[in-house]
């Protein structure tokens, strides 16, 4: 691929964006790791940026954007240059419907940037910034817990961090994700951590799912 060695480039061609009239529910449980800024529709396309670790250099990652009601979905692959030193990358996001994205409130949009090609991601996810400064002070993990009554988040490798009780999303329509976990401030901009998600449904503990979170430290 003829690409510059320093910029992250969009591989998907055409840009894969679906604006549908009826909700589709995916089987994927992890829907996003996001830090929100305020996006106003000034005619310019929304700006997404992601802090990509150096270890992802030379590979691809998959960025997915879904709205809570499931009516907006975008899934695209980006190439990371092999000489990538780690750091923030602004993503090319040629959306055809900036107004539609602008209308979404923070609890209504989930963005995930996961290592690997779309459909073949590795369980590592980097925080995506939406229209905000890249110094995150709040990061949310958005999950489809399939209507679990309770969801807990554990950081087993970080004994000083207490477990997190996630909350049910306040979005009116919870078709593509229903649970939001707030990442503890102490972890933000730190080294990658393993998070374990535990849903409790119908009074029974469910299967634990682990994921590596890259929370903003370049490296």
């Amino acid at each position: 691929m003829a690409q510059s060695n320093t910029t992250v480039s969009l591989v998907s061609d055409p840009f894969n964006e679906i604006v549908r009239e009826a909700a589709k529910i995916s089987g994927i449980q992890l829907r996003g790791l996001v830090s929100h800024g305020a996006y106003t529709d000034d005619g310019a396309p929304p700006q997404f940026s992601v802090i990509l670790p150096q270890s992802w250099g030379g590979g691809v990652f998959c960025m997915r954007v879904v709205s809570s009601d499931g009516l907006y979905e975008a899934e695209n692959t980006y190439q990371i240059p092999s000489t990538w030193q780690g750091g923030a990358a602004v993503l090319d996001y040629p959306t055809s419907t900036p107004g539609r994205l602008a209308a979404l409130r923070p609890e209504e949009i989930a963005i995930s940037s996961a290592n690997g090609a779309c459909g073949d991601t590795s369980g590592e996810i980097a925080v995506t910034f939406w229209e905000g400064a890249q110094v995150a002070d709040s990061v949310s993990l958005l999950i489809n817990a399939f209507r679990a009554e309770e969801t807990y988040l554990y950081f087993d490798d970080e004994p000083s961090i207490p477990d997190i009780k996630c909350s049910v999303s306040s979005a009116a329509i919870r078709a593509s994700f229903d649970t939001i976990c707030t990442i503890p401030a102490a972890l933000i901009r730190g080294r990658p951590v393993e998070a374990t998600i535990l849903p409790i449904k119908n009074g029974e503990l469910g299967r634990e799912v682990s994921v590596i979170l890259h929370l903003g430290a370049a490296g």
Partner: protein
Amino acid sequence: MRFSQLFTIRSGAWILAFITPSLALVVLISILTGGISSSRSFLVEANTTGMSVQFSGLNNAWPLGRATICAPLDRPKRENARGTGPCDERRYTPSENDDLLLEFPDGSSATVLVQGNGGLAIQVSGMSLFGDNTRILVARDDWIAVGAMVFSGQAVIGGQMGSGQQNILLDGRFEVRETSSFSLGGRNRIEVIKSGTLLRGEQASISESGADTTVTGHITWSDNRRSMDVVIVSLPGNTALSLGHIGGDQVSSIQPDWIDYALASPTLVALTLVLSICIGAGQLFFTATSYLRKTNRTSETTTTEGQ
């Protein structure tokens, strides 16, 4: 003799000519006021696997008899074993109660779900006696022995549809009932203004000015072991039925309007019938009057000529 006959017919016609438009006006007014009437009740009857209630008032008590109480631990104990009891001991501490009376204080809430074994799981919050998210399990035989469970408060039948949802409205129907503004014969007439069915997976509640309103209702067991039957009735008011669907971007609101009222109200149908008879009779009288007047004039002319 002829003249007085003519007079009677003519005055009858005039009376009818007055009655017909005033009756038409009454019908029109009642259609329009019926459409904006604020004294209707919604009735919803549903077969569902679950529902939730936020109780209001002091009259909410369920004598459950024998039940298992699963009190939540502060935090789940992931490393422990589940245990073999009815509740997951990594999350709850179980205890048995032989004579449980659940008294729901004003503002407390409960989510009732029918379990796979046909029993009930009642998850309660806002009660002083039990911690939030306490699960109360009642076996099916014990539930049937208990009988109906009556409630008053804000009720939502079924959960918002999504993969994994277990609180599912299976089927149901609704009716809008209203006391007629006309009480012919001194009795209040209850009329069904609108009715319809509820589809599987919908989420139903009754609202007034956009917020869930207080309803009374009851929960009884269904012959189907996986569900229960629920009936809710709203207090009279300017109420609407709120239905959540999958794929919809907002809750749809069902409220009768003047068209439903004009089509469905038996009083209006009766009034319309009376009105059409009046119009027919009036037409007949007018035809008769003009014929008689014509005949009279002709005979008067003949008499004058004869002299």
